[in-house]
């Protein structure tokens, strides 16, 4: 006997499993600190590469002036300036990433919880049907 309510529930669950479910499962397999920490580490690497690219482009852009003034420039001062900018940029980027991935983790957990509740509901539906048969 087909149960329309059960079929709707199963369809919704199958759709979730195929789309968001996979991602959410991989997210929820970690502890919050591990997951967010890993993403922050990735963000630091990406921010470093991006900053190096920007610095490289800037150096190439100002190459002539830099070569002319190379002996007049205080290298340590320049390095400190670059480092300071790098720290500010990376920290602010990592804060954004931390917030974004914390929210993402919370949503994934919530969705999975709803999915497991639906699984329980589905199980109880099957049990009711079994009892009715008996």
């Amino acid at each position, binding site marked *: 006997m087909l149960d329309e309510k059960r079929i709707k529930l199963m369809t919704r669950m199958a759709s979730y499993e195929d789309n968001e479910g996979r991602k959410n499962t991989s997210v929820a397999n970690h502890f919050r600190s591990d997951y967010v920490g890993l993403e922050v580490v990735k963000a630091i690497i990406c921010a470093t590469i*991006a900053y190096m690219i920007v610095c490289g482009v800037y150096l190439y852009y100002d190459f*002539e002036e830099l070569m002319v003034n190379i002996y007049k420039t205080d290298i340590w001062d320049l390095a400190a300036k670059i480092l300071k900018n790098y720290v500010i940029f990376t920290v602010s980027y990592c804060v954004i990433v931390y917030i974004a991935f914390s929210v993402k983790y919370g949503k994934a957990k919530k969705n999975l919880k709803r999915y497991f509740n639906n699984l329980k509901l589905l199980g109880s539906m099957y049990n009711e049907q079994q009892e009715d048969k008996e």
Partner: protein
Amino acid sequence: MNSLMSIKLALKKFAGRNEALLIPIFKFLVAFMALSRINSTIGYMARLKSAPVTLIIALAASFLPLNLTIVILGFVVIAHVYALSMECALVVFALFLVLYLLYFRFASKDAVGGVLTPLSFVFKIPYVMPVSMGLTGTPSSMVSVGCGVVIYEVLHFIAGHKEELSSGEEADKLGQFKTLIDAIIVNREMMALAVSFAVTVLVVYIIRRLPIKYAWFMAIAAGELSLLIVTLMAATVLNADISFGSLFIGVIVSTIVNLILQYFLFDLNYNRIEKVQFEDDEYYYYVKAVPKNEFVAEERSEKKRAVRRPAPQVRAKQPVRPRPAEREEYVERRTANPDHEQQALRTAAAIRGANAGQAQPRPTLQRPGERTLQRPGEARPGETRTVQRTPQRPGSDNLR
């Protein structure tokens, strides 16, 4: 209104039935349009520009994920710019890489905004995108729309300064590099548009999420207003070269397009809001349910039919007219004899003969060469008979 609903329902049904076919077609069209526009504006590499290559890439894109298509489009752009100048290609590659590393790496869903925004510029409807992304996306869409503006402006600059950027002399290489970097850093129009688009996305998103009636309409109105005001302010402050006429027309077009989008995505019936309140062990719930607009074609057509059908007319009772004796006789014969037609004709002829001395022939369709059956008292074809007319008796017409 109902016809619009029926169109919407038909489109939804059609899309649902042919989803497997429509999605690759949509992907193909997006990739093909983007590639053709790239080829027409910065198509400096002859091999990539050719129609077969464009078609092959677009066909491949129709089966690939959208994000991979975007990566392919990025490489096509870099290849074209490389054919013009290696330094410019380096700048474009660096720009794309930075955008990917900092944003699109973890917001892959929003990458569509980064492609559709430059496309909307090409199709002269750039002001549609921020409001559309605010309606359909998340706050992070403001970054993707801003990135789209930057990508368009860079490519637009390269297309407009071909001679300046393509001189083959070694001494000019650094100059080309500087020119392009300056175009990115000191492009006031780009900054003004990026800021106003980002603010608009945020405004539209915040208002459409508010728990108020007509939130989407208000979001569109507020978005268009903020687009107008912020662009005007940014253009004035940054001294950017933005045509106010095109801005006004663009905002009007954007309003129309986004109202259509709203109709298809979020069409609610605010007249039928239901408010319910209940509680469980832990919470009180105050629920406001807003139903979607429904299509009521069957009901309406029934109603229409009911209106069109003429109401039964009540006729005044006619006084019963006494039947003539001949009529009574005809009715009796008809009920007694199944071959009533022939009987009726004979009776009519007899009555007419009695009235006029001669029966009138019944008009029949006759083919050439066909013989007509002769009735008693009738004239043969070609024969003329003298008829004596006598005045008809009143009531004899009833039998015809």
